[in-house]
């Protein structure tokens, strides 16, 4: 497939002429044990077509039964988004044919979502708070997974055939839809990312979703339209489907703003259509235009009875809600003793929960921060993923830290150990063993290396003897080089000073 590259306007120029209007549909996969309408396991990564009952394959004669925990999770999400909870709501069938949809209709909700009319405050990196209004949150089911074969790199275009795995079919989803978001201006891309991050944080905090974007637990469809400055009426929007990382959300919104601006500048109207996001080129391509085939013929699902709520039930669920994220942040900052600047950096880097988990696993808040804001963030930036998506677990950090504190490895070596663990070479201890990374702790070889280094730089040795203790670094460097970094630098320094008869 040849990629069509659209014209784009520079972001700044686009912002001079147009106001962006955003809208998001975020799908959250719940982490219930079973599916939305069947007792098949809701599990990721199993052998294809094994987490299925006759219901999940849509076999003739089957009937759905609602997962009560999924309904309670939906209500909790609604409450956390400050929504009103429907007194009575129905499931509805959304009819369309697609091979990943076993019944050729999706069981969803239509006229009466379980939660509606909410809002959440989104804090941007500099502390600015932006209120996003929530139109609705409704319950529905996920589709199966298609794998496209015989074409280029698993793409649907040019594929000869496709394979369908229905393990994911029927996994409970909550779709959260915003009202149009106006007034974000040039901060629209940043707000987009922050909004999705906030939703992810909320559902993870509620414990109702694993919220792992790399696994598709949280998926975002981003709507963008532009209106010329000063105009009231919204422009035509495009919907960029399945933007599945926080960075991608930011980039996709930014790209669509630039592309819309170029199209509008050329005097062409925007076509209402879905767009596909391509991470490799950081651009979108045209998907399917809206057509009369998008007539979903919704009607109330006759096989399911309505959900009726009451105050007692809702209040019981409200009482089960965990601490809201803003209060949680306040508490964590106090517990960890970070400065305002330190804490904001942690939040902006998206590693607050990771640090919380790591502290809970048994290291100090300072050590946890050092890892997540240092080495892990550095690697995430290089890989262009979120730090939490690298696969570094709190347990791994605890083990690495223990190895450092016991003097078995030093900071520098710990990075090699991390490489090894992430490359699947085993536990940190195993990697140390296999790669031969242990710090040289026997003084014998060290003294040999020190003597060598002193002999190589006699002038430096003299300076030290003369009291210029700070010059010791050059000798330490020489020793570290000779031992290929496997020496404990502190011990080396001690031994050099001893050797030269100087007080450290």
């Amino acid at each position, binding site marked *: 497939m040849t990629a069509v590259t659209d014209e784009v306007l520079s972001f700044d120029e686009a912002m001079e002429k147009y106001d962006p209007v955003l809208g998001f549909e975020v799908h959250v996969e719940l982490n219930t044990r079973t599916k939305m309408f069947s007792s*098949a*396991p809701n599990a990721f990564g199993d052998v294809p077509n094994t987490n*299925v009952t006759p219901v999940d394959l849509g076999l003739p004669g089957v009937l759905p039964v609602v997962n009560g925990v*999924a309904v309670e999770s939906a209500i909790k999400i609604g409450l956390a988004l400050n929504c009103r909870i429907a007194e009575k709501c129905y499931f509805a069938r959304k009819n369309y044919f697609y*091979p990943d949809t076993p019944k050729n209709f999706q069981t969803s909700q239509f006229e009466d979502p379980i939660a509606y009319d909410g809002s959440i405050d989104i804090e941007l990196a500099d502390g600015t708070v932006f209120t996003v209004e929530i139109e609705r949150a409704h319950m529905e089911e996920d589709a199966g997974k*298609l794998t496209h074969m015989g074409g280029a790199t698993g793409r649907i275009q040019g594929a000869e055939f496709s*394979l369908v*795995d229905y393990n994911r079919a029927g996994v409970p989803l909550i779709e959260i839809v915003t009202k149009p978001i106006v007034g974000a201006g040039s901060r629209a891309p940043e707000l987009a990312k922050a909004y999705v991050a906030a939703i992810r944080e909320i559902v993870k905090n509620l414990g109702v979703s694993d919220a792992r974007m790399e696994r598709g637990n949280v998926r975002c469809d981003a709507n963008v339209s532009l209106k010329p400055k000063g105009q009231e009426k919204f422009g035509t929007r495009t919907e960029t489907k399945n933007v599945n990382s926080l960075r991608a959300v930011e980039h996709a919104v930014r790209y669509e703003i630039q592309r819309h601006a170029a199209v509008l500048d050329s005097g062409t109207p925007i076509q209402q259509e879905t767009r596909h996001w391509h991470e490799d080129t950081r651009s979108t391509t045209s998907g399917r235009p809206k057509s009369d085939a998008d007539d979903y013929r919704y009607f109330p699902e006759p096989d399911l009875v309505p959900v009726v709520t009451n105050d007692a039930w809702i209040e019981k669920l409200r009482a089960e809600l965990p601490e809201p994220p803003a209060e949680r942040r306040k508490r964590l900052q106090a517990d960890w003793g970070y400065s305002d600047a330190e804490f904001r950096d942690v939040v902006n880097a998206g590693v607050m929960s990771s640090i919380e988990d790591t502290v809970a696993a048994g290291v100090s808040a300072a050590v946890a921060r050092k890892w997540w804001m240092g080495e892990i963030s550095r690697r995430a930036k290089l890989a262009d993923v979120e730090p939490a998506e690298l696969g570094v677990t709190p347990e791994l950090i605890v083990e690495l830290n223990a190895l450092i504190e016991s003097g078995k490895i030093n900071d520098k070596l710990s990075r090699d150990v991390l490489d090894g663990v992430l490359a699947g070479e085993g536990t940190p201890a195993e990697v140390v063993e296999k790669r031969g990374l242990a710090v040289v702790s026997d003084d014998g070889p060290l003294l040999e290396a020190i003597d060598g280094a002193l002999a190589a730089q006699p002038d430096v040795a003299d300076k030290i003897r003369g009291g210029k203790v700070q010059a010791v670094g050059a000798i330490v460097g020489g020793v570290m080089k000779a031992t290929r970094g496997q020496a404990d630098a502190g011990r080396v320094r001690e031994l050099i000073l001893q050797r030269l008869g100087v007080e450290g």
Partner: protein
Amino acid sequence: MAEINRDDVAHLARLAHIDMTDDELDRMAGELGGIVDAIKSVSEVAGDDVPATSHPIPLSNVFRDDVVGETLSNEEALLGAPDNADGRFKVPAILDGE
């Protein structure tokens, strides 16, 4: 009888994913027109004050415990499939080739 024409039926057949020949479209348009004429009076019977009934016996909040039950094996799942490969259901290309 002019209620439903051939193009309408062609559109409905596309929505319903049923291929129809020109003859079938013509015949179906005639039959549907007759049926719709005979039943369209329902739209005039009940006023705004009458609620809709979607379920004949009113029930609510029928929920299942979140407990894993019996599943089909991969072989059972694929047993009736017209085509399969690699433990999955095999379908022709979704998009038209070049």
